[in-house]
């Protein structure tokens, strides 16, 4: 962890680019249970930099000029993998929010119960819960 400016940062923080960061924030909160923790704006109200957190995870977000999201690019280029305590509950929350999924929650041979999902701009997310805690 790194601490500066009053906030704690995991060693690795994905920085996700969106064409509409405000809409993405709303979706990540409603569907995946992330909570806003930091926002900076320009004087015309344009979002400059956003941070959301879930448990100990932090994602940074923003909208670079002329950015093409995975949906417009036609392919996913990275997957965000999040460990959670109750994967089925997260799935239900995401389903209620109208999320597009890459499969339902399933026990995987490598020791987690997980599902994949897409956010509205096509970024791929994985949510996983260990099948056996502590091992």
């Amino acid at each position, binding site marked *: 962890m790194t601490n500066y400016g*009053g906030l704690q940062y995991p060693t690795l923080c994905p920085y996700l680019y969106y064409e509409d960061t405000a809409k993405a924030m709303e979706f990540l909160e409603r569907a995946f249970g992330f909570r806003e923790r930091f926002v900076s704006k320009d004087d015309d109200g344009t979002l400059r930099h956003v941070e959301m957190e879930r448990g100990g995870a932090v994602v940074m977000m923003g909208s670079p000029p002329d950015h093409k999201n995975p949906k417009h690019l036609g392919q996913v280029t990275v997957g965000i993998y999040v460990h959670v305590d109750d994967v089925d509950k997260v799935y239900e929350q995401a389903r209620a929010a109208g999320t597009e999924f890459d499969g339902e929650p399933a026990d995987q041979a490598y020791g987690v119960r997980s599902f994949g999902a897409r956010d509205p701009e096509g970024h791929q997310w994985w949510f996983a819960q260990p099948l056996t805690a502590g091992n």
Partner: protein
Amino acid sequence: MTQPASVRVTVYVAVDPITAFEIFTEEIDVWYRRGPHHFFDPARAAAIRFEPGVGGRLVEVYDTCTGEGREMARVTVWEPGQRLHLRDTRNTDIDVTFEAAGDETKVTLEHRGLERLPAAEAESHARFGGRLLIAWFSDHLRERTRT
């Protein structure tokens, strides 16, 4: 690169909104951290206090007998358990809202008007400023509810 015009920091604290508001205002001298950059005159600053209500001051106290010192900001909205708005002496706005969120209270501090400051000062406020203030408050509440 120009500095942002506003920064907004959100924390969740394990008390109700009224209590969070009271601790933010009445206990500021407990959680506001001393430091060379946190007062106008760190050598003279003995305390910090709010004068409750609209028109009240946030005072950097130099004389603990009288409670007088230098005005840091003026209260423009005082709604216990809901909202506190300050206009500081540099003409920037600090807006703090308190909102029930399940068993917790969502406390959001937005510092606006940074575009009115010289670039270096705006950068300092964007990087530290309200971010530190809300972190100190949050840390204090965590310690307070633990004991």
